[in-house]
């Protein structure tokens, strides 16, 4: 079965990104396909590579990146939500005249159309949020 997941919360406000990650792992373990994970609202905070949590803390940003690399996941960050929260890839940083970018490996920045397309292309769309 083909899934699109929507994640609306960051790693430090709510459990929903943890739940989404565990769900994604379980679905992949069962042989299902994750067509896309769309990060919206504070969910875009899952996509920074500059977070440095304490060593004994979980690091969701890295776990999403690693899962994406292992399974070729398409992790999409909403551009409007990202700009508000200072999440940039190299081209977006350049376009905005900023000196740095911070997007984590495996993530890309795009628009809401990607969520709609995910809903159309997938058998199931699940929302994880607060």
């Amino acid at each position, binding site marked *: 079965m083909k899934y699109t997941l929507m994640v*609306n919360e960051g790693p430090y406000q709510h*459990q929903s990104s943890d*739940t989404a990650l565990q*769900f994604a*792992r*379980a679905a992949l*373990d069962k042989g299902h396909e994750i067509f896309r994970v769309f990060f919206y609202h504070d969910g875009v905070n899952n996509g920074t590579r500059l977070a440095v949590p304490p060593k004994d803390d979980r690091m969701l940003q890295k776990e999403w990146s690693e899962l994406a690399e292992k399974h070729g996941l398409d992790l999409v960050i909403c551009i409007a939500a990202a700009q508000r929260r200072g999440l940039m890839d190299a081209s977006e940083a350049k376009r905005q005249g900023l000196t740095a970018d911070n997007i984590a490996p495996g993530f890309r920045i795009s628009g809401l159309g990607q969520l709609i397309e995910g809903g159309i292309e997938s058998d*199931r769309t*699940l929302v994880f949020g607060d």
Partner: protein
Amino acid sequence: MAMLHIVNKSPFERNALKSCLAHALAGDAVLLIEDAVIGAVSGTSLASELQAAMSEQAVSIYALGPDLSARGVSEQRMLDGIQVVDYAGFVDLTVANEKTQSWL
């Protein structure tokens, strides 16, 4: 055309579970995750409503095992009839039900 309703709020904090039960149809499934698993405890003010949903409305109620454990709710403390699933069981529920609705 059964629907999986996913609830993640404690029923003692928000009314998402009550709203969900009011909308759930016979054959639907309700999955309690995150803080909503507190609603699975027996003997609460919500117990009779959940029991009625299961017996009279023919709605199946599930709770996510890892979230129950995280909150110290053992199976002995749970309301009869609520089924415990792990994340794999969560995935199976999304396969078995054609639609999912997160009651955020």
